[in-house]
């Protein structure tokens, strides 16, 4: 789950990292009032779950409260990479002497967390990674012992910091890692982390992603979820234990298993069609859950055919068939349905489907081809 900058900043600040305190505005009036309270130059920043806000014009400097109002007028409602801006952060302008990048994330290949830092702060870190990977300093963290002070110091020296700035920097590294662990984050990032003209450390931005699997022990973070930033259907699906991602095509897919679901989308494409969604009904799917999946897919008006691809392992074929039959009683499905059913209890499942007027195949390629054809004919 992604958090907004202002939410991440609040959490960082709770963990002892000095952030650039600002306030949230949802209207130009509010932005103007906040700017007046703060006094002096302010920055108006779009709050959306995507990077590249600066390039898209979502971050503006304002010298007067009136200018802050104008900036908010421009930014609110803006579409940044498909995200509509509904809130702006109004924060004091800062006199920046140097900018850095600092982040904590998981190194999957090493199965360890890693601290990353760069003297190229303020630019997109993916760009640095791609074009100048040698400019990124990495330090793996011992899973049992955490970040050693020497590691934090060493990163600081490698960044070329003056000796009197090292202990302040090392403290931020430690706190950013502590935040990462305490909040079950998969990313904590400050970009840029700045040294002000007065020589003080300040987190000018804050980014945080929380491990969805760990949200059960962080109800406070779950409460920060911004429903405007998430696809309502995807969220609805997750509550039922279904993974759903909406795509642009017209063939609705219902599949068990993430790998098979991706392979099914690929098969649709391979046979000349476009998948309307990714959907994994999950392990041990009940009849109710399959019926729910049906509801999710048919809610998309673009869907012209539905491809159900089930290979029974933990999910038994007869249970899936029962779910399909039940769903057809409950949901009024107007589009053709193509079913592929193999694996555990598949034969019983196919028999049950036949009794309900649905023919099922055993081949995934055949089913994908049939679904593409059915969508074209519809």
């Amino acid at each position, binding site marked *: 789950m992604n958090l907004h900058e202002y939410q991440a900043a609040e959490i960082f600040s709770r963990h002892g990292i000095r952030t650039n305190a600002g306030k949230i505005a949802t209207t130009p009036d509010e932005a103007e009032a906040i700017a007046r309270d703060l006094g002096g130059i302010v920055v108006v920043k779009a709050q959306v779950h995507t990077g590249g806000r600066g390039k898209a014009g979502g971050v503006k400097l304002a010298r007067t409260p009136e200018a802050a109002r104008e900036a908010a007028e421009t930014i609110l409602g803006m579409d940044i990479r498909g995200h509509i801006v509904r809130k702006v952060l109004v924060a004091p302008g800062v006199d920046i002497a140097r900018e850095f990048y600092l982040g904590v994330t998981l190194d999957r*290949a090493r199965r360890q967390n890693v601290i990353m830092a760069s003297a190229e702060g303020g630019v997109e870190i*993916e760009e640095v990674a791609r074009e100048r990977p040698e400019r990124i300093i990495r330090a793996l963290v011992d899973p049992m012992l955490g970040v050693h002070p020497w590691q934090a110091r060493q990163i600081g020296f490698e960044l070329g910091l003056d000796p009197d700035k090292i202990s302040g920097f090392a403290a931020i590294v430690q706190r950013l890692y502590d935040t990462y*662990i305490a909040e079950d984050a998969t990313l904590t990032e400050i970009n840029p982390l700045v040294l002000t003209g007065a020589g003080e450390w300040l987190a000018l931005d804050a980014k945080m992603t929380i491990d969805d699997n760990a949200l059960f022990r962080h109800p406070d973070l779950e409460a920060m979820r911004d429903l405007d930033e998430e696809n309502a259907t995807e969220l609805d699906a997750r509550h039922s234990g279904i993974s759903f991602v909406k795509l642009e095509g017209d063939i609705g897919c219902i599949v068990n298993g993430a*790998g*098979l679901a991706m*392979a099914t989308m*690929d098969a649709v494409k391979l046979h000349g069609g476009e998948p309307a969604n990714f959907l994994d009904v999950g392990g041990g799917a009940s009849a109710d859950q399959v019926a729910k999946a049906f509801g999710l897919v048919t809610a998309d008006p673009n869907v012209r055919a539905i491809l159900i691809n089930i290979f029974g392992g933990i999910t038994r074929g007869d249970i899936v068939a029962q779910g399909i039959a039940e769903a057809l009683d409950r949901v009024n499905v107007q589009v053709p349905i193509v079913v592929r059913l193999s694996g555990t209890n598949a034969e019983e499942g196919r028999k049950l489907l036949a009794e309900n007027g649905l023919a099922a195949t055993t081949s995934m390629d055949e089913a994908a081809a049939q679904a593409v054809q059915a969508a074209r004919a519809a």
Partner: protein
Amino acid sequence: MSILVDRDSRVLVQGITGREGSFHTTQMVEYGTNIVAGVTPGGRGKSVAGAPVFDTVAEAMAETQPNVSIIFVPARFAPDAIYEAVDNDVPFVVCITEGIPVADMVPAYAHVRQRGSRLLGPNCPGLITPGQAKVGIMPGFIHTPGPVGVVSRSGTLTYEVVDALTRAGIGQSTAVGIGGDPVIGTSFIDVLGLFEADPETEAIVMIGEIGGSDEELAAQFIQEHVTKPVVGFIAGRTAPPGKRMGHAGAIISGGSGTAAEKMAALEAAGVRVVDRPSAVPGAIKDALHR
């Protein structure tokens, strides 16, 4: 021969009295797996599919000497089950559980390694040596003994490929599901190394998917260490960038993680990469007859 499990495997089931645990214990016993014991705290004296239930792994070890454990414990208790298994010297632990927080798996993985045990998964279907032992949740009947080693990050997609192989008359030495989580105990490289060393495995099928860089690392390993033919399939060519592979994931893999990059890396390492699961048997036949 085979890898990791065979007819001599003595299997312990952790979480044996739960819904999934008891269902799959019965399935494994029906397949012929030697389930020697189960553990459920407070379950001592019960029995599931003929296997005695103990309160602790220590007791089960003392009385039944298992050498493999399979875990069906819910996500918030599963890391503890992993610790209990390896702290009692179970050499091989298979964790089926889905949804374990990454922050729990990072230290668990480090501890398993420190104890010298091997972990398969989590969030995996387990593994099967056809005709000998099924330590997992896969449908046993689609497998048949033979010369092809299968390793995969996915569950049902593995069944898909195994089923296609069996229908084409090609058996499997062992089929291993390594799991779809960001932190897993056994990687492609580990399994590829075992298949390379197994005299009964003549060819390998490797099934990957988008995200991370394990396939790229496997490609490098294949180029340097694997002499047996490898056929590959990567799922997710049409997948959009996923939400869990955010900003930071991209930096770790240095811009890799897409299906196209993984396929290119494997092809460059001499792997025959196919575009659909149903094309795997044909490619394997070609490789075996060469």
